[in-house]
């Protein structure tokens, strides 16, 4: 009877970690493929973090572009980071989380104003999300990207 309880108490966390490893890695790879494909579409529309502007001509319009995303890591990476927190050093399993979130937020910002010629004064903000159920929110971040989308006047 005791051994069954032991198996359950060890088995469920291990199962979640294995599921997290298998499904999480696939999801992450797909997400990266998706990000790279969408980034290619905006190759001709530069993003600046300064206020510019070496505009090739007068500016026709300006408007705010906003994009945000909430992303969390899988159980496997959360488990790995637990070790890392113990020994210290760079937490590599979380770097990909933040990178994905930033690139996704920037893409959504651009997609909110897809006709812009340039995005200036881009700002990125990161905040962590805590869950009401306690520590579960660890490894969940929100990234907000916003910028001013400008369109050049091309008419002669």
């Amino acid at each position, binding site marked *: 009877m005791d051994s069954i309880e032991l198996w359950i108490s060890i088995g469920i966390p291990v199962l979640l970690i294995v599921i997290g490893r298998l499904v999480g890695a696939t999801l992450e790879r797909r997400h990266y493929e998706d990000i790279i494909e969408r980034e290619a579409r905006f190759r001709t529309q530069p993003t600046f973090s300064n206020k510019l502007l070496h505009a090739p001509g007068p500016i026709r319009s300006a408007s705010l572009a906003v994009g945000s995303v*909430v992303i969390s890591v899988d*159980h496997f990476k959360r488990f790995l980071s637990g070790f890392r927190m113990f020994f210290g050093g760079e937490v590599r399993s979380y770097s990909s989380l933040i990178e994905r979130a930033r690139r996704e937020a920037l893409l959504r910002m651009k997609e909110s104003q897809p006709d812009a010629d340039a995005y200036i*004064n881009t700002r990125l903000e990161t905040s962590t999300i805590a869950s009401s159920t306690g520590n579960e929110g660890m490894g969940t971040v929100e990234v*907000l990207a916003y910028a001013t989308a400008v369109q050049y006047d091309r008419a002669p």
Partner: protein
Amino acid sequence: MILTNIDSVPGRQITQHFGLVQGSTIRAKHFGRDFAAGLKNIVGGELKGYTELLQESRAEATSRMVAQALELGANAVVNVRFTTSSVAQGASEILAYGTAVLIE
């Protein structure tokens, strides 16, 4: 209403400044979304429920800021900034602020 996050509206002249306008909202997530997010946490990836929640609150904060600017007679808000702070566990405040101006 034109919103920008730089000091001016490119290509337009600012004729009058009205000062700071702001809008904020505090939202809590409901149980269903929290539960779904807990499951999604196992495999990682985007938590769509939370993304939507924060986007809705940001839109709400922005529209409150715009309403304040309209009341002052402005037709643009420049230097818009967003901030997020968690007030309590499971609830966050979203603030949008900027300078209301009149452009020609």
